[in-house]
């Protein structure tokens, strides 16, 4: 089995919009429902490790503790047009399974999903 981070990306400005970037309240509710169903499926198939949504990137704080005193900076580490908006951690047999799940995840949450392997090697 191999673990992957599936992250959803979108513009930070979505958080300021009335429906968080969805085109209508109905679309938002149906996406939430689809995402919930997808999570249930992940659980049932034994692939689910953890999942959550993230608040806006501008609510982030960066801490650099490498010097004598920690330096605290307001905002995300990288200025980017798009930021991570949520993520899953899954544990699956291989990339093909992860890619299939990512396609379902993307359709459910209405966003693009990046699939990235975790460095911990396959468990025996």
């Amino acid at each position, binding site marked *: 089995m*191999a673990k992957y981070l599936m992250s959803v990306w979108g513009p930070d400005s979505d958080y300021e919009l009335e429906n968080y970037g969805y085109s209508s309240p109905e679309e938002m509710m149906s996406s939430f429902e689809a995402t919930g169903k997808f999570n249930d499926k992940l659980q049932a198939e034994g692939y689910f490790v953890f999942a959550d949504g993230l608040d806006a990137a501008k609510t982030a704080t960066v801490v650099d503790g490498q010097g004598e005193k920690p330096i605290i900076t307001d905002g995300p580490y990288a200025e980017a047009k798009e930021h991570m908006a949520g993520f899953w951690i899954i544990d699956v*047999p*291989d*990339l*093909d399974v992860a*890619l299939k799940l990512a396609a379902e995840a993307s359709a459910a949450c209405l966003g693009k999903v990046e*699939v990235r*392997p975790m*460095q911990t*090697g*396959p468990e*025996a």
Partner: protein
Amino acid sequence: MTDVTEAITRVHHEEWARVVASLTKRFGDLGVAEDAAAEAFMVAVERWPLDGVPPNPGAWLTTTANRRAIDRIRRESKRDDKQKEAVALAEIQGPDEPSPDRHSAIEDDRLRLLFTCCHPALAPEARIALTLRMVGGLTVPEIANAFLVQETTMGQRITRAKNKIKAAHIPYRVPEAADLPERVSGVLAVLFLVFNEGYLSSGDHESSVRGDLTLEAIRLTRLVRALLPDDGEVAGLLALMLLIEARRTARVSATGELVRLDEQDRGSWDLDLIAEGHRLVRERLAVVADGGARPGRYQILAAINAVHTSVRDARDTDWSQIVALYDQMIRVDGSPIVRLNRAIAVAEMDGPEVALAEIDRHLGPSLDDYHAFHATRADLLRRLGRSGESRAAYDRAIELAENAAEVALLTRRRDQLGPS
């Protein structure tokens, strides 16, 4: 070439992918497999001239490569458990001895290797490079030379792809039946890109390796066909490549100018390749007539090429059949480029005016940056006697064309135009 050198070249062609595939399966690592296979062939180059070619060269190479891989992994302590386990297993079982009943398992290994190299999670140019290296056995300098990039760049591209396969756990297996058609079409796309790079190369590079790319693509497509004999699109792509390759020598003049299909010396076409291509097309037509799956892109393109190559005189070409095949093609792929090709056939059937009206009305905006669009317009305008407009279209086509032989043809055509 001595007999032994010749034998080594032939065995390299035939056995490289088998050796790499069987080692990848055993050690779970493309890098280990590639290095060990390369070392085994180096040993063969040293030893076979002295000891003679062994009776079963494939088994000899696999055994030698296995030993080399085991030695190497022993020397490097940081290998993961899976590989140590593979070493242990390899020592207990001994190397693969190809025997009749092992045949299909080994063929499966090669197919696995091909699907891994053409995995959609790899960048398209990485898929091409990796396929030529791991399945085709071309060296990194050969591949770099063929695609006009620095050797170090090509080496890094292949290394990155191998690392991604490992880190992202791209599976080493033949895809499940449900995913197979889509994944096969990805493999075929890679092979067709290799073929086209050899056939219609950009730039004026004239390297023998680049010419060899068409033959390599055909060889690999034959391999896929041997592994997946019932796939219509595999047969279609092979037929298409054979029918295009058959015309290779007639296609460029002694002065390096592209020769259009209707002006080619048909006597210099390769009749064996044409016969084989036609046989494949007929085979597919029979399957479709029997209610088999509808033909896809490659089968239709092969059928179009079969129509072109079935007459001895270009004037006898059955254009209505070609237009009908393009109509079928548009249902599979309605892209502007397919529509442009259909319009070229329409010009032969209904005259240049009808074709020109069609492409000007429907294709202008989407194909404005495509040289063949302007070359086609230039030709139609020339045939209609509209020299001034034709000249302007040739100028634009020459500006956009990348292939030197094509630029030469377009320039001569433009310079032959009468006063407007």
